[in-house]
């Protein structure tokens, strides 16, 4: 026996973000369109003899503006970013939690937790014994604790989980949330990603695999699609989106910003560090099929565009093969401005797609100066570009081979 199930349309009604470009959505968006760069010389630890000198640090984030001192004690920085972004997003979405059924609100967050906190405790355990480790570390480091803390702050009881597919995690969380909402698991899911990436151990380990730019000039370190690109630059931050079923959003007369229309996933099954071409193509194809569109419908691509030699070449090739003889729309990498926010990257970039649709403008790839013959598409160099945008494709890929692409569509009722 088969049953017929209604598939709900899923819409975005709120965005919150904490990024190196600012700690509020409209501030970040304005800075991005103006060509500002959030990458700076690292100041949170001594980089004098450190191989990596630049990153998208967040120096003006005050967790106490979003949570009480006790919650600050019990959370890692990445969960604090997620709580802040969630509260901003709920505010933009005009959601009165008291008027909602808490059983129907879920939280999905792409995060790797804060494993570096365990390192400190291992040193303490070695020196002083197992009874001297900090009991709060469990609450601070685990990946599952970011959604847990957000859910506790809001008092909501729907699906609550973390997702990790490395740098694909943000898109992955939004795509999974979309499917949960389509099937009716919840009415609202607050989904996105968070990452506190600029720590000595994260930079040292990622540097050892050759993925990071060693350039010490903040304005020349992250150069997506440029011939002089030398690796990616980490950034900190979070982005959370309020996703709702269309019916729920319409019933509460919510401001609808855009629709999450499709998601595609693929896995390279190839290498721990190097990307594979065909799965990149199939990932975009699945997303396009899921949204019931064709490549030629897409008006803008927010690329994964990390600034590594391999990623930017393979992504360019994949896009060319996807479009074949069709015209390829403008592509940009906003990582040149924000840095690579790791598990939050896909979520921030999905939010940028939503805002690009809202305002009819494509954010630029800043710091672009030297064309690479192997990367020969239109990357919207240096200056934002006016264009009516109805459909965006947002690509994310993770170290290890996980890919996730999303389709973001201008909302039309019905």
């Amino acid at each position, binding site marked *: 026996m088969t049953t017929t199930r209604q598939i709900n349309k899923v819409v975005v009604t709120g965005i919150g973000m904490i990024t190196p470009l600012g700690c509020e959505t409209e501030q970040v968006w304005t800075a991005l369109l103006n060509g500002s760069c959030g990458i700076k010389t690292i100041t949170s630890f001594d980089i004098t003899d450190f191989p990596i000198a630049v990153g998208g640090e967040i120096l003006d984030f005050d967790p106490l503006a979003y949570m009480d*001192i*006790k919650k600050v004690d*019990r959370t890692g920085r990445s969960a604090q970013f997620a709580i802040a972004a969630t509260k901003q997003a709920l505010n933009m979405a005009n959601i009165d939690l008291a008027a909602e059924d808490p059983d129907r609100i879920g939280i999905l967050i792409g995060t790797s937790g804060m494993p570096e906190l365990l390192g400190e405790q291992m040193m303490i355990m070695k020196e002083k014994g197992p*009874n*001297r480790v*900090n*009991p*709060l570390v469990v*609450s601070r480091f685990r990946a599952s604790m970011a959604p847990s803390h957000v859910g506790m702050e809001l008092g909501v009881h729907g699906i609550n989980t973390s997702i990790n597919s490395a740098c694909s995690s943000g898109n992955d969380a939004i795509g999974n949330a979309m499917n949960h909402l389509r099937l009716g698991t919840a009415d609202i899911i607050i989904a996105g990603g968070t990452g506190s990436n600029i720590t000595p151990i994260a930079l040292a380990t990622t540097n050892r695999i050759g993925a990071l730019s060693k350039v010490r000039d903040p304005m020349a370190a992250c150069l997506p699609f440029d011939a002089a690109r030398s690796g990616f630059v980490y950034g900190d931050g979070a982005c959370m989106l309020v996703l709702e079923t269309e019916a729920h959003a319409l019933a509460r007369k919510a401001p609808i910003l855009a629709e999450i229309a499709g998601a595609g996933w693929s896995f390279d099954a190839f290498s721990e560090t190097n990307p594979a071409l065909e799965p990149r193509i199939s990932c975009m194809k699945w997303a396009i099929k899921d949204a019931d569109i064709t490549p030629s419908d897409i008006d803008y691509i927010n690329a994964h565009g990390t600034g590594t030699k391999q990623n930017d070449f393979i992504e360019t090739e994949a896009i060319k093969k996807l479009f074949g003889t069709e015209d390829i729309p403008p592509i940009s990498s906003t990582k040149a401005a924000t840095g690579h926010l790791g598990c939050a990257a896909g979520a921030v970039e999905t939010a940028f797609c939503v805002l690009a649709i809202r305002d009819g403008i494509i954010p630029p790839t800043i710091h672009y100066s030297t064309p690479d013959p192997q990367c020969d598409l239109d990357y919207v160099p240096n200056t934002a570009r006016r264009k009516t945008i109805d459909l965006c494709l947002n690509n994310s890929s993770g170290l290890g081979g996980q890919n996730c692409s999303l389709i973001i569509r201008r909302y039309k009722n019905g």
Partner: protein
Amino acid sequence: MTREEITNELKDIIIQITHKPIAALSDGDNWQSIGADSLDKVQIIMALEEKHDIEILDEDIAAITDMHSFIDLLEKKINA
């Protein structure tokens, strides 16, 4: 340390960890009445262990019924 000194020190540590004001600590207070949950409790005990280089065993913790019994235990451990 005198019992009064230990009581005052304990009160300060409780305030520091729970972030809740306490005017005075009375013998009849317990973890709940001072607003300490299980994580606060472990932190309070660890702070005292660190400060005085003492060890409070799990069976000692289980025997703490109120602040009176806790201060008794601290008096014994700190002044041993």
